[in-house]
């Protein structure tokens, strides 16, 4: 009986480790609660995690103005936001870059007509709390704000074939999980202020 328990525990452990990518060192694990954040949106309002409490699925994207990869993904964020808007999916873009500011973000938001909230959090605390390393770095949360997916928006900057965030949103909307819940994000390292 004891051997059977050991075997089952080992098998469950193996299955859990296989569902994330092996060797991933992340702050948040799949199923963890979304950490709170406090950021200033481009309209001057303060936004927190609670500001989006009505959403069935929340996509948190760490991004910035300056990184070429982040810029390349702006249109994809806009498209996702518009496609899923009527399914009660919300997206919030958070910028922790120490040299950027709300004014420049407001210009970008207006220039590209972002349909999502773009907010600045200068301390870097939210990037640290989420374990966001680069821009863009995406986190998909379900209705209970449990983490469903973290990582790259899709598989390729130039010719995407696998839409990781869209698939995770689809899964979260129907109470399902994704096969691979942790993937590497690629982009510019987030230049954030040191923690106090």
């Amino acid at each position, binding site marked *: 009986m004891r051997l059977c328990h050991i075997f089952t525990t080992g098998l469950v452990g193996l299955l859990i480790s296989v569902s994330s*990518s092996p*060797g991933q060192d992340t702050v948040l694990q799949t199923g963890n609660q979304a950490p709170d954040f406090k950021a200033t949106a481009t309209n001057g309002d303060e936004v927190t995690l609670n500001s989006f409490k009505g959403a069935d699925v929340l996509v948190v994207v760490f991004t910035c103005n300056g*990184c*070429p*990869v982040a810029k390349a993904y702006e249109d994809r964020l806009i498209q996702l936001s518009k496609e899923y808007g009527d399914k009660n999916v919300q997206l919030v873009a958070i910028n922790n870059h120490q040299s950027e500011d709300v004014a420049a973000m407001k210009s970008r938001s207006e220039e590209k007509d972002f349909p999502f909230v773009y907010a600045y959090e200068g301390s870097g605390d939210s990037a640290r709390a989420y374990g966001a*390393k*680069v821009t863009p770095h995406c986190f998909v949360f379900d209705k209970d704000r449990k983490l469903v997916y973290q*990582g*790259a928006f*899709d*598989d*390729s*900057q*130039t*010719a*995407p*074939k696998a839409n*990781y965030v869209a698939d995770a949103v689809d899964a979260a909307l129907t109470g399902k999980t994704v096969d691979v819940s942790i*993937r*590497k*994000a*690629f*982009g*510019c*390292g987030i*230049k954030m202020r040191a923690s106090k």
Partner: protein
Amino acid sequence: MNSLIKFGGIAIFIACLSVWLSGCSTESPPARQTTTDTKLKLLGEVELVPTDSKGLRSWMQTQSSDLILVDYWATWCAPCTEKFPQVWGLQSQYSDRGLKVIGVSLNELNDKKAAAEFLSTCGVSSPQWIARLPSSEAFTDFELDQLPTYRLFDKQGNVLETLSGDMKLDEVISKIESHLKLIPLK
């Protein structure tokens, strides 16, 4: 007098050519190497060979260098391109102590031209590598969290040290020095 002017002109031409050949390195011009796999490409794009972690490891095992420094970079990464010439300059500084420096671009294959054009502005030798996989898979395959990443390997292709993010060249040099100390002198 005419032959003096001619000689002076040729000397000036050779001096200018030497300056041009030294590329964009902020270090003194690298010493010319004579082995066949380090011929300088003077004109045209630098050849970029698609690879992955397995391919890189196999290649390392064919090399005679005791220590290999891999610079993982991309044209979209400003700290990468700023530092690339200086890191490349370490090749000439440490080649007699068994260090080999190579670059692996994380530009996607669709964006290979941009990577090759950047490398053409620097006095680099071949081989230069580029990820054969699309970005997210490439980052997973090479075990990268961000760029730049500087990674030291031994001659078997085992990882000795990984440094990543925007950092001072001194930090990279310090790691190179400490690992070279562990290699017995021939």
